[in-house]
Structures are given as C-alpha cells and as structure tokens.
C-alpha cells in the first residue's frame, strides 16, 4: 500500500492553490480529507505527479450564514457539518445524512467538499444537496462560477469541476425548521448506501405541505424525485397515503447491479425506503 512518488504542495490560499494547479499541468490531484484519494493512490489506480493539499487553506473551512443561504466551506470535515448548530437549524437533512457516513475516524478527516467532488453515486451527501437545491461555487484561474446541483453531478464520479478548478463552497438555501430524514440501507454500519432516500419536508397538522426527495445510488448520479414531491404535497402523513404517493419513485431508474443486489431489488428497496423516509421525516 505504497503510492507512487509525487510532488506535494500545501498552499494556504485558494489563489496559491489555483496557481499551483495551473503550473502542474494535467497530472495533478487535489487532496482534501484523503479518505477516497489516498486509497486510490495506495492501490496505484492513480499516480499523479503532483498533489495539492487544500488542508491548510483556512478560508475553505467552516459554516456561515449569508442571507437566505447557508454556506459550507469545501474543507469542512463531516463531523463539523454534523454537529454544526446552523446546519441543524437550516439544513437538517444534511446533518441527518452526514451522520450516516462511515465511522468517527472517517468523519473527522473526510470533508464535505471532498465527498461532493468525488461524486461517488453511493456517497451519502449528493442526494441531500440535490434535494436542498444546493449551489456549488467553483473557483478557477478565470474567476468563480456557481453551478446548480442538478448540473453539478454529471456522471459516475464526474462533476462540473474542470481541470484546474477547485470547489470552494456550497451554498444551501435555508430550509429553516424543515423536518428531515435520511433513510440509508446498508448491510454493515460502515458501508456506503446500497440505496438511500433523502427527504426534507414541512407538515402542518399531520398533512405534508411541501416535500423534497432525492435518491442515492439509484443511477450514476443522484436523482431528484420530482413526481413524488408533487404527489406528496397536501397528502396526509399516513402509511397508505404516503405509500401511494411514492409508489412510482423508482420508475425509469437504472440502478446498478452488484454483490449487494440487482437493479430490480434496488428499485423495490427505493419504494419501501421512500415510504419509510417520508413517514419518519413527517414524524
């Protein structure tokens, strides 16, 4: 488990990091928490010549408010996201999902931005960001651009971040007081989702007024369940009514088949888990 040799840089500002990326050509990797990148390097599935470590750029770490948005720095470790009071207040879904990631060690090293940039379809933070209509702030030599979640996740392990760019922060519209639940299905505690359902909603007097729902690992990118969201609006939070509203949630999806189950099984799971997630969120 020894990576091939590489040059290592640890810049202290985004500008310096971008300059290093530009100077290093194609064969460069950005290092965040290293929880996904280091195994890749150790197994020699990648052997970049240069690694640029973002760990010393303080500006990339932390959670703050900016008007109607909550801004989460890319280098904020999972455990800080999961324990942040602002996140709990304005984006409860993120907290619920982040708590299911791996184990305490990984949550102390792995970062919010690293997980999203990595864009593993089985990763647990993609669907919640999609459900919350998060926006991704990407910095490059030419300046900064903002990409909507729907456009950010492009394919299997592929995002809108281009070579030479860095994800600096994620802006999450405040969903203050929304209830939330992340229903993750896995075989052992320390495992990625076989399937998971992210739900955040508002309800009044036992009736759902508004819901946001997204699916983890049901395709190469997270999937927003718009039809289910519409069907849930105005529905009583009873098992029967919710089951009916989410019955078609897996229709048209093309989930993977692997050791944990085939596509049919995943589609079935999604339907069962969606009902449970909505009911749990509705409390």
């Amino acid at each position, binding site marked *: 488990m020894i990576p091939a040799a590489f040059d290592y840089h640890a810049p202290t500002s985004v500008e310096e990091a971008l300059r290093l990326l530009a100077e290093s050509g194609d064969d460069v990797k950005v290092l965040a928490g290293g929880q996904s990148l280091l195994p890749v390097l150790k197994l020699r599935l990648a052997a970049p010549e240069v690694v640029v470590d973002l760990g010393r750029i303080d500006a990339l770490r932390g959670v703050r408010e900016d008007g109607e948005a909550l801004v989460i720095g890319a280098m904020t470790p999972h455990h800080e996201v999961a324990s942040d009071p602002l996140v709990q207040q304005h984006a409860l879904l993120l907290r619920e999902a982040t708590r299911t990631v791996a184990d305490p060690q990984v949550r102390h090293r792995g970062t919010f931005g690293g997980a999203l940039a990595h864009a593993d*379809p089985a990763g647990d933070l993609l669907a919640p960001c999609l459900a919350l209509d998060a926006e991704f702030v990407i910095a490059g030599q030419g300046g900064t651009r903002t990409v909507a979640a729907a456009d950010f996740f492009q394919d299997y392990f592929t995002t809108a971040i281009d070579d030479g760019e860095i994800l600096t922060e994620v802006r999450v519209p405040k969903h203050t007081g929304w209830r939330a639940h992340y229903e993750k299905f896995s075989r*052992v*505690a*320390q495992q*990625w989702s076989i399937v998971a359902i992210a739900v955040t909603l508002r309800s009044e007097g036992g009736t759902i007024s508004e819901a946001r729902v997204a699916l983890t690992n049901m395709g190469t990118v997270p999937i927003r369940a718009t039809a289910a969201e519409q069907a849930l609006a105005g529905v009583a939070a009873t098992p029967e009514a919710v089951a009916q509203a989410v019955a078609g949630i897996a229709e048209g999806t093309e989930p993977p088949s692997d050791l*944990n189950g085939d596509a049919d099984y995943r589609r079935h799971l999604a339907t069962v888990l969606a009902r449970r997630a909505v009911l749990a969120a509705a409390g």
Partner: protein
Amino acid sequence: MTAVDETTTAPAAEIGSPRKRKEDQRLITGRTRYTDNITLPGMLHLGMVRSPLAHATITGIHTDDAKASPGVVAVYTGADLAAAHGSLPNAWPVTPDQKAPEHHAVAVDRVAFAGEIVAVVVARSPREARDATELVEVDYDDLEPVLDLEAAAAGPPYAHPDLGTNESATWIFDSAEAGTGSDVEAAIDQARGDGVVIERTYRQQRLIPAFMEPRSTVVDPTSEQITMWSATQVPHILRLMLALTCNISESKLRVIAPDVGGGFGGKLQVTPEEVTTLLVANRLGKPVKYTETRSESLVAGHHGRDQVQRLTLSATKEGIVTGLKVDLLANMGAYLGLVTSGVPVLGAFMYNSIYKFPAYRFTCHNIFTNLTWTDAYRGAGRPEATFAIERLMDDLAAELQMDPIELRRKNWIRHEEFPFTTVAGLEYDSGNYEAATDKALELFGYDELRSEQQRRRESNDPVQLGIGTSTFTEMCGLAPSRVLGSLAYGAGGWENAQVRMLPSGKVEVVTGASAHGQGHETAWSQIVADRLGVAFEDVEVLHGDTQVSVKGLDTYGSRSLSVGGIAVVKAADKVIEKARHVAAHLMEASEDDLEFSGGRFSVKGTDKGMAIGEIALAVFAAHNLPDGMEPTLDSDATYDPVNFSFPHGTHLAAMEVDTETGAVKLRKYVCVDDVGIVVNPLIVEGQVHGGLVQGIAQALFEEAVYDDQGTLVTGSFVDYLVPSAADVPDFITDRTETPSTTNPLGVKGVGEAGTIASTPAIVNGVLDAIRHLGVQDLTMPCTPSRVWQALQSREQGEPASVQPTNPEQTSGNLNSSGVISPEQGPRTEGGAS
C-alpha cells in the same frame, strides 16, 4: 498456612480472577514490535509480482526494465529460485494415495490461481520494490480455469492438468466398519419405510481470515544462525518445515514470532512469501523484509471453509435420530497448504455432535480448483460440521412440528451418561447439556419470544421473528499424538513448558504455545502464581522465539490452555518437588513433614517455614544443597494430552426479518458456554465475543466471491464485509462449569467455540422467522437481497429452496457499482478526474 504472610505477596486465588491482560498496554498502544516494525542495517525489501490470471502457462518473463529501475538490487523468477527449495509442505496426507501438485514458492511455468507469485523484486526501499514490480512483464497463455467446486468434482478440465484428476483424496469414516456403530444405509432405508428422512445440501461459502496485522517476514542471514521474524502462529513448525523445504540445517535457523496481530488459522502456514524471503536473503547475504498489502493478503493468504455438504439424516417419527450420512466436497483451491487436506477430516468426528446417533458414515472428497488455496480458519472443519448438524436438527424439528429444543433433549447424551463414546469413536469425558440449555432458555426468555413470534405471524407483521438454536460441542485441545498418528498427520500434539526460578524469587515461564492475541502471558501468569504461590506480577511469560522457547507446537485448535497450560502446570510441579527437597534439607525436616501452601514450605506443627523465593536464592548460591543435587530448580515438562477436550454450550439467537426489504437483524443473542474451569473470565469473555462475531459474519456478512475468470471480486474490505461492534447487539453470555476430567486443571478450549456455535444459531433463526412463509433454505451469507429473493420466489409460487452459491457470481453484473472493475475501481477508489 499462617493467616498473615509476612512477605505480603501471598496471592489471592488467581485462577478464576478477571485479570486485565498484561500484554494489552503494549498491544493496544502499538508500542511494541510487530514484524513490520523491525528494521535492520542494510535491509532490502521485496515486492511480489502476482499473476492476474487464475490458470495460465507462463511463456516469458521480462525483467530488464525492473532491474534497471532505481534502487533495484535483483529480480528473481521461479526458475531462478526453484532449485533452492522443494515443494511447499503439506503435513497432512490424509490418504496414502493423496494427490498433490508440486508447489513452488514462485511459480515456474504455470500459475494455478490469481494472486500466485510469478516474480520477486528486491530493492533498497519498499516503494522502489513496489515501483519495479509494475515493470515486470509476464507473457501468459491462458488455460481453462476450474472455478466451480461441483463441476471440478466431475472434471475435466483439471486445475492441474498433469494430475489427470481434480480429486486429491477421498477420506471415509464408516461406523459399521469402525465398529463404533451400525450401518447407516440400513438405518436410512428403515426410516424411509416408517420414519423420516431429511436430505439437504448446505453450502459453506469461502471465507477469508481477516487478521488485523497483514503477514510480514524479515530474514537476517548475517550471523551463524539465520534469523527469521515472521507474523506467524507457528514459529516452531515453521522452523522445522523451512529447514526441510529449503534444505537448511534446522540448527542454523531461528524463528521468532514477535507480537503477532491475530491469525485465526490464517497464520498457521508455511507461506510462499516466507520461503521466498528466506531464499532471497540467503542468496544475497543481506537482511530482507517482505510485508504484504491488505490486497495481497486477501487474494493470496489462504482462505477458509468452501465446502458443499450433502447430508442425509434419518429419524423415527418420534424424533429419535437413527442415522447420519455426510457426503462432502471440500475445495482445496489450487494447492495443499500445511493442513489444507486435513481440515474437512477434522470435521468428520463432529457431525454427530452431542447426539446419540447409532449409525454414521462420512465421506469427503478433497477437490482442486484454480482458486486461492484453503486451509485452517477458526474452527477448521468443526464449524462446518456443527452448522450441518444444527441446521439438520432444526429442519427435522420443523418437519416433525416439534420444538427444536425438545427434539435435541430427546437425542443428546444425558449428563449421567458421561463418559460417552460416540458413533465417531471419540470418548467425550464430560458435559452437561441440560444445565447449559436450561440456563440459556431462562436468560433468553424463550417462552415470551415464542409468544411474540406467534403474535407477529398472526398479525402478518412485516417484521417477522425467528428463534435459532445451536447446542454445539466441539473437539479441541489438539491433540493426543497417537490420534494424530492414526489420522496420518505429520507431527504430534504435545506441548512443552519451562519454569525457571530466578535467584530474586521472580519466575520465568517459557511456553511453546505461541500467542498471537489470546492473552497467554496473563493466563499463564495466573496459573503459575497460584501453583507456586508467587505474585502475578512476578511471573514473566516468554514465548514465540525458537531460541528461547526451544520446543513447542504452537497455537491453533484451541490447544494452548488445555495442552500448553497443562505443560506449565507440570513444569511448575517439578519445581515444587525440587524445592521441597531443598527446603527439607535446609530446615532439617523430613520431606513428608513439609506442607506447601501460599508459596511457603512449612514444617507441620512448627512455625518454621521458607518461601519458595528464599529457596531459589539458596539454590542459586548452592552453598548448602542436598548431596548430589543439581543446583537448579528450573524444570521443564512436555505434555501429551490423553484426550481432546469437548467444550459445549447452548446458543440462542432472536432474529428479526424485515420481509419488505429482506434485511435481517440480530436482536438478541444468548449463549451459555461450558469451557470447563475458567482461568480468566475476562479473557474467556473476549474469546467468546470475538468468536461469536466471526461466526455471525459467516451467517450474514462475509463471502469471498470470484468472477467467471477466477478473479477475486471481494478484493478489498469495501466488498468483503467484515462486521464491527456496531453491527451486533450486546451479547448475553454466561457459563456452566463442568470440568474436563482428562487434565489436572479441568479446562477445555474456548478459542473457537463462539465461531463454531454461532453460525447455525443465526441461520436457524432467520429461517425460523420465514419458514412459515415457505422459505426452507437460504445460502450464506443471508444477505438482504437473498432473503428478499427467497421470499419473492415463494410469492410467485416457485419452490423457495436452495439458491446457487453466488447468484450474482455469474450474472455478468459484477462489474457495476460496488465492486472492483477495471473501469471503476473499488468504491473508495473511483477517481474524480
């Protein structure tokens, strides 16, 4: 004994005390020496080039680029090394005509499994070695790989074309022939007429011993004696086997197992890596280290289990068992390791378990395939047997609509019937199945759970409840040498110990049982502290170095305490006898008038006395000893057990099955084990907990899966799911103590008990939850997807029985998410490029 001991070291009874382990401070903090921590001046490092193919002819190996790579000292192929060693050892030719392929440390002209070493790079640093392995190019001609066990049994094609068969050996035990019982075919025929016959095929999936510390070896050839440090369970066996295999004088070889981070049988081996490291170090005359990566450990460390069990059980309609026939296919994989061939044979004596079968026949076919070789894995043969019989008993109970506990009561050996000679020819010395079972039922709340099960069934609850039973026994404490001889095993089963009295009164205990996490240092100290009446802290336990512990047969088969511990007792007793002689002399008393208690010899009826430490000092000075006495108290003992030990217990599992998702949850687990007298309850508890999780892992989580080319798909812990504490509930454990009658401490083994017992308890529980829904069988591990599929086939009116071993294996879907594939990499490793 006087009430107050003026030395203040008078120990309380150590045996039975839950001492914290003295070795844990260094093991847990890592402030210790594992093999990979060892660094010697001028040390070189190895990198292995391994075959990506399961079966191929090697037509060319190009090493020039690797040789030119920075830091590289040499590159060797199989052809370079073959002359320096013989075939890697198999110590257990189970039949005189057993077939085995030649096994080189580095493949010479053909590879027989993916992961086999084809070349070795020697470099100045581990990284340079690793870099250069990527520059070695190997030309292969594909041969057809033999991957499926049942197809292999029918072969061709052959895993080793030269052998002309895939069958290594067939081993049979028949109670009618052995005179230990009657004819099983007659019993089955009879039952077909007026009783019941249960016929089943169970599958033991392939497992990987996932020890925490990957294997590592350092060899220093720069002194008169060559020294090898290795992460091994068996330094003594390794030394002998290396000497024989590599044609080195045994006296020129010293093997050290420093602190070793777990083994579970996976380090009970003479590995190609150890042999290669030794050969390279010898050739270059320099210290050499090889430490495997986790990926290498998973593909090339030996695997475990992998059997197909065809079983027939006959019984009367009243539920009295009358016969048991076992027909096994055991997957050897590509080669025969140290005891590969003997693992299924060890199970042969355990299928009848605690039940009074009058007739029994066991046949085992040892089959070669082009997969990683198998060998011992925690329990070795006995978990397979226990799984089979405990599942059969539950299946029989279901067939007869009888409570599974009731059925067992009708058939087990009653407490008053011990000692009892079984249909497999073993004499069980002791046991109390009634007591363990009664206690377990009470702790479990059996009746309440049965009522809850009924309620859930009636209300058609989406979550169904099942209760799994396993009333296991096992044979351990390997082993009486005569028995091993009768089974054609290549060595004996004794163990050696030495007790040394130091002049200061402190004690050194040398044991041939080589601990790799079990806590020997603590347990042996407790035994000796009690025996000699010295303080626990004053006992130092030394092991794992053939220069310190000169004789030994190491640690496996739950043998350390019941064999090695007894050797310690016998050596300590010899020390006491010598000391008594001196004490009598010094106090001018007759030996018969001396009492030894609390570490003191006292003269009966007087206040005269001497502590054993004082005697040790007197013997050291040797100024005044009995005539003709050697000036030493030190003693050693070699103990050959007269019998195996037979721990037993009753394990109960409450399993919840979510019928909507197939998810299985272990809600409650109760076990009452009888491991005889307990030296340290805390260590026993640890062994039971760890053992349970390992057995539960087979039932629910772990499985080595290969693709249709023979490439290991579960090549990382992302896919080979080893559970953690977070995946199991708190266990409710208790004990009964029925002493073994065949050793002076009354102890039995505990190292494998939990693993052996728990697997069937879990699977029985899962089936009990959904049997009424039409599911009769499930293949391990019982994954949510398999359980759900089984429930679906039932709903669609199909027979919901045995599924193929790995339904996913041949589906061609393996290359999607979650598993390693060239396009994708493992889950952790996809690039965000």
